[in-house]
């Protein structure tokens, strides 16, 4: 799970950093609250933020697959319930 956290965090950070640097180079600091999905820097940053946002769910999925493979079924069931709760919250809006 630590490898998953490191990998996905590094990926998310790289996207956010690339978008941030590009945004600053294009004078984005003047409008820090701007949100413009048509520009590449903002899309990169939002994609990185999205990758970060799914990380907790991915960690629970990793736990679920580990417990299932190890036949720790009670813990696998708990992990499955948390995944479903998370999905339900995301779909219904928190």
């Amino acid at each position, binding site marked *: *799970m*630590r490898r998953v*956290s*490191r990998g*996905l*965090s*590094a990926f*998310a*950070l790289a996207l*956010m*950093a690339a*978008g*941030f640097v590009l*945004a600053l180079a294009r004078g*984005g*600091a003047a409008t*820090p*609250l*701007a*949100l413009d999905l048509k520009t590449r*820097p*903002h899309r990169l*940053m*939002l994609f*990185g*933020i*999205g990758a*970060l*946002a*799914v*990380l*907790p*769910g991915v*960690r*629970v999925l990793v*736990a679920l697959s580990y417990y299932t493979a190890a036949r720790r079924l009670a*813990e696998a069931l*708990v*992990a499955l*319930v*948390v995944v479903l*709760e*998370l999905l339900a*919250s*995301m779909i219904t*809006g*928190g």
Partner: protein
Amino acid sequence: MTLLLGLFLSGTAAGALGALLGLGGGIFLVPVLTLLFGLPVRVAVGTSLVCVIATSAGVAALSTEGTGADVPLALRLEIATAAGAVLGGVVGVLIPARVLSVVFAAVVFGSAGYTLSKARGPGEDEAMYRRDYRPQRWTLGYAVASLAGMVSGLLGVGGGFIKVPTMYAIMGVPLGVATATSNFMVGITAAASVFVYLGRGDVRPLVTVATAAGVFLGAALGTLLQARLRVAWLRWGLVVLMLAIGVQMLWKGF
């Protein structure tokens, strides 16, 4: 540019405190982002949710063998937290906000007192990370975790300031494990809400990335520092924080 630098530094402080005390940082960040930097509340909450996940991710990525979260414990308590969040959504409409603030303040003060009662005599040592423990008092642990969920839903925070003392003082989990486990849990709690804010456009890329970058750095510093701190110092840090939050809640209640 000054704004972005200020956000980065605020994020660093929030990430460090969050990693040290098992919090997501939202309890600091939302007031700082709104009062100090003048961000609209919804943007501040959206930014804070991303940063709570960043704290959780940073702590997880940097934890070493034997210092990570107790994942089975986290998942079990997270079910209770989610149930509490749903209940909070119902209760929050029926009970006046002032009454809720006073009730939560009482819970926070009680948790602070119970955490202090764990203090041992001079000369006694306490390990931050042990693996030879068994969580106890599950019923009470579930009940308080549900309450943490209610608080999370109503205040827009991760509830780590209740989860850590619950695991440490009530359930007998070593403090280092409790903070790492709480960091795992608050990440899940924040992830449940953040997509709503993303969908509404309340997550503004530049301010969020600047703050989250600081949070990652702070979480790294906090994780490294925690290994060098004594349990007593962290316990006192947690108690002071809980007292400050309790006073703030009481103030809102009256």
